[in-house]
């Protein structure tokens, strides 16, 4: 009956978003009066998995099959379904990532579960009605969704809840085999290409984001964005017009039809703040807008603003951070 938590690992480490998912799962378990078991996917080490005790996880199931290192939808689905059967789990929690949503949607059919993605809060369980709040309309609204049926799957949006850190708590790591066969690996990747991360931070996992728009005037000026990002330890992003004209790659495009981010800090440089862009960033905790046009609509959605020329303001900010550190 334990709550099953799917943790994504990369290069031996549990991803930060999965620490949040584990903390979410253990709090749901507490609410339901049961324990939380994790199942690990990706490249993990047993030592790091044991540390999931700090997020309230009692037990971690781990299949050491080497082909599970990369994301394979078929195999991951079978592995997690197997773990859910073993633990008789009625609630499964995953990250609302490309992996989590891909696997979660298949699992919901296989396990006859109801599914909510983009979940932003802990569930409410009142009078047998299980309700969660999720983001809808591309960040322009929220919906309280009732999940029907006995089994539920929740995909939790990054940075929606704080990760727990109960120092010293250790989870028991248990080898688990889902008896995977070649047929489960038909969508195994032929090749995996990771973005150049030299000194950079990945946008989907980032706590701090520095983003540039058309006001940056051209890709040759992007070092101003990159310098500030580097000083802060932030990821870089851009608006749709910028990726449309290939100043920056598509995976940096934040907005309604790009990726949605919810970092602690989003600094928008030379972005006017079209409604489609705001949709991708408005769940950020703090928004800073730098724009020379005081009428830019983005200022209405901002916490802090500087009306000024990005080419003068950005170097000053970078300098100020360097002095602070």
């Amino acid at each position, binding site marked *: 009956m334990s709550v099953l938590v799917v943790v994504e690992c990369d290069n031996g480490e549990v991803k930060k978003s999965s620490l949040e998912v584990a903390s979410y799962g253990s709090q749901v378990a507490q609410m339901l009066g049961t324990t939380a078991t994790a199942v690990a996917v990706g490249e993990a080490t047993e030592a790091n998995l044991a540390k999931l005790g700090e997020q309230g996880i009692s037990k971690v199931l781990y299949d050491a099959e080497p082909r599970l290192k990369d*994301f394979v*939808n078929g195999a991951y*689905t079978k592995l997690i379904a197997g773990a859910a059967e073993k633990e008789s789990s009625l609630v499964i929690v995953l990250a609302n*990532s*490309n992996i989590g*949503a*891909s696997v*979660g*949607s*298949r699992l*919901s*059919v*296989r396990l006859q*579960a109801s*599914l909510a993605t983009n979940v932003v809060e802990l569930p409410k369980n009142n009078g047998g009605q299980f*309700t969660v709040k999720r*983001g*809808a*309309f*591309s960040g322009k*609204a*929220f919906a*309280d*969704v*009732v999940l*029907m*049926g006995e089994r539920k799957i929740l995909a939790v949006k990054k940075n929606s809840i704080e990760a727990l850190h109960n120092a010293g708590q250790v989870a028991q790591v248990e080898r688990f085999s889902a008896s995977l066969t070649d047929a489960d690996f*038909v*969508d195994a*990747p032929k*090749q*995996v*290409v*990771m973005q150049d991360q030299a000194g950079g931070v*990945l946008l989907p*996992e980032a706590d*701090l984001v520095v983003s540039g728009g058309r006001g940056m005037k051209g890709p040759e000026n992007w070092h101003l964005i990159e310098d500030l990002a580097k000083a802060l330890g932030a990821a870089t992003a851009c608006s749709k017009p910028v990726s449309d004209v290939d100043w920056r790659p598509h995976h940096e*495009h934040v907005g309604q*039809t790009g990726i949605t981010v919810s970092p602690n*800090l989003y600094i928008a440089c030379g972005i006017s703040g079209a*409604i*489609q862009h705001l949709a991708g960033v408005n*769940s950020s905790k*703090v928004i*800073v807008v730098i724009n020379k046009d005081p009428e830019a609509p983005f200022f*209405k959605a*901002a*916490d*802090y603003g*500087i*009306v*000024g*020329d990005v080419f*003068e*303001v950005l170097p*000053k*900010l970078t*300098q100020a*951070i360097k*002095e602070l550190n």
Partner: protein
Amino acid sequence: MKFLVCISNVPDTTTKITFTPDNKEFNKAGVQFVINPWDEYALTRAIELKEAQGAGTVTVLNVGEADTEPNIRKALAIGADDAIRVNAAPKDAYFVAQQIAAVAKEGAYDVILMGKESIDYNGFQVHGMVGEMLGIPTVAPAMKLDMSGSTATLEREIEGGKEIVEVSAPFVASCQQPMCEPRIPNMRGIMTARTKPLKVVEAVGEGARTEVAEFALPPKKQGVKLIPAESAGELIRLLRNEAKVI
């Protein structure tokens, strides 16, 4: 190759979102509906692949009531050959997935394409559900799709990179940029779309598994605190000491 492209009917991206007084439904009054922008990548790519193969058909499928037909006609004008509308309001992802799976099975489609997610519900669920219901692979979200015979090579986006995946038809893919440059209808397309077949079928399967109890708008911001450009460094101090985010 038979392509099935699933489109949803969504509020235009510039829409200001409001709800009915009981907060149970989206307020459609005065709202312009469009083909879901993610679905446009699926539609255009299917047409391009059909043209490259010099054979095959592109069928567009929508689960919706009669008011979605203008956008179905638009998809036909862009270049789909025929259309099917499942006559029902799309209650939730599971409900919609059942309709798509039933149509896909009945028509023995080789490639089932759709956008990554709809910009209204943002479920990012239907692709995987359909794949599982049909027992075929799903590649989601796909940034690139090429076909050689019945073998497809796709780029699947993962956090921080991409995987190159090869699957054989039949399969499902959910599409996103930079897969192609979405086409817009031309005059000839608009004329021919009027007479292309649009079949209406009734919904099948079980009902929904989820239900919206209430919609809400995000809390309003307190108002922006402006810092003079000359003392830009002050912003960093505020971010550390007041907002405590760095």
